């Protein structure tokens, strides 16, 4: 057998990998873009409709509502997750006993599947909380159902976010605090002026990761509300799945998916630039 050169070997590896990636990522992406200009129902024949789907998207109340819900959900969940995780990380990084056991317990929600967790919390919100408070279920009220989803999503997401903050806090050398303490920086002052600036890279990782995950929320909604009550918890992913796959709106929801894709890219680029600049300033 002829010996392959280094470059030939690399090409023989890279080309099939690129082909696979193209086939299951780029090709469906192009097809999705194509379908977004048609009135395809998911079956049967279809016609080209130009930009009609896109024009309709902006006047469709249900789509607008799903964007509002998804963003409200993602922003609130990101803030809640990061505030709690940061506090938890400071605690778990403190002078405590049973440190690794505690970290191990707080990490458990990360490994559990979102769907089953959603079912379990669905039961808590439907039966246990009303039994405690004497009120009705959060999930049956259009004003509170979205926050129930925030709680579940944050419960799961806090686990990983906390661990990332802890690994950030561990990069801060002990003498920074000692030097700070001499200058009178303790407690909140020490956190604001010493700790936080040093863990900003970890803060930006967490913001980007949690925001992206929350914008794509699906499992918890599938398990807890199916978008209800009165479509008040219908996330963009859920709407695309529900109406695109089963509702005869394949073409229309493809257009929705294209816009969603552009929004995700724009937010990611913005977040990376924004947090990148902040790091430079410091």
């Amino acid at each position, binding site marked *: 057998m002829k010996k392959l050169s280094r470059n030939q070997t690399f090409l023989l590896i890279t080309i099939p990998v690129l082909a696979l990636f193209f086939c*299951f990522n780029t090709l*469906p*992406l192009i097809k*999705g873009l194509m379908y977004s200009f048609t009135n395809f129902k998911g079956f049967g024949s279809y016609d080209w409709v130009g930009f009609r789907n896109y024009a309709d998207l902006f006047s469709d109340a249900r789509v607008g509502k799903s964007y509002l819900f998804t963003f409200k959900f993602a922003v609130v969940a990101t803030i809640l997750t990061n505030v709690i995780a940061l506090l938890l990380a400071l*605690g778990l990084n403190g002078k405590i006993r049973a440190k690794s056991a505690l970290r191990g317990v707080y990490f458990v929600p990360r*490994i559990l599947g979102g769907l089953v967790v959603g*079912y*379990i919390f669905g039961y808590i919100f439907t039966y246990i909380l009303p039994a405690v408070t004497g009120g009705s279920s959060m999930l049956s009220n259009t004003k509170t159902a979205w926050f129930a989803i925030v709680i579940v999503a944050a419960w799961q997401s806090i686990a990983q976010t906390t661990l990332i903050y802890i690994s950030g806090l561990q990069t801060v050398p002990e003498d920074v605090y000692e030097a700070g303490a001499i200058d009178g920086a303790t407690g909140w002052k020490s956190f604001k002026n010493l700790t936080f600036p040093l863990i900003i890279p970890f803060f930006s990782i967490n913001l980007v990761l949690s925001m992206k995950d929350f914008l794509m929320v699906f499992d918890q909604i599938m398990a807890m509300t199916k978008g209800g009550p009165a479509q008040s918890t219908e996330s963009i992913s859920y709407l695309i799945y529900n109406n695109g796959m089963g509702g005869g709106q394949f073409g229309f929801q493809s257009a929705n998916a294209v816009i969603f894709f552009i929004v995700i890219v724009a937010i990611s680029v913005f977040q990376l630039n924004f947090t990148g600049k902040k790091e430079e300033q410091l």
Partner: protein
Amino acid sequence: MKQKNRVAATTNWPLTILLIVGCLTVIFPLYMTIIIAFKKPSEMTNDIAGLLSLPKTWSLENFAEAMRVTDFWHSLGYSVMITIVTVVLAILIHSLAGYAIGRSMAKSRFYKVSYLYIVSGMFVPFAILMMPLVKQTAQMGVDNWFGVILCYLVFYMPMNVMLYTGYLKNIPIALEEAAFVDGATTWQTYWKVIFPIMSPMHATVAVLTALGTWNDVMTPLVIMSGTGANTLPLAQLTFQTQFGTNYNLAFASYLLALLPILVFYLICQKQIINGVVNGAVK
């Protein structure tokens, strides 16, 4: 060692106790799942004491029934098979791709572009690929577990290739040159020298890919639906209507679905936590 002594000397007990109490937020939903899974429907009352009390007898009846209703062993089999095959192929293919691309990126425009092309796939939400992928996998005759694996190999490629190329930067090329001098080809050098050195990254990739595939619902939901086969999380969704209002049966099934990953976490807690944190921070 020095640090450990200092911690032991001044344990912050209020903080330790606060954090232990905080663990209840994680333990309570799991506690509830376990007791409901063991109870009989007749033991379920609507007052809070009845909801949270321990079952009168610890019978396995609900589990046997749940296994029968959800076709547990088949679903477990599919989940295990999909996860293991995906992880093994991801480690082999993504590390090879990371190697070929990472070693050539600096010199060649083609590989630099290939790298950016693959990594940019990270921004593509599943929602936009979903509908075209359903059509495409059906046309290709892979609208089954195998198609799901192919999709995972592509979905995790951006992250994994980025992790491998990043890790490769710290492996000096001189290590390979020694093998070349002995007459080894690039292919042989890779498997004998580079692949073993990348073990820490294999662990990270394995953990992230395994957690993602094991818990994913959306991909098997849209691609495997209609084949009659389920993964473990998907089975919870599929048989939701059959559980009806028999929450004891449902929770026995949820517990069975959570158990494998919980056991796995107990065994390799450290590797899982490290994997998740490394994957996010690097």
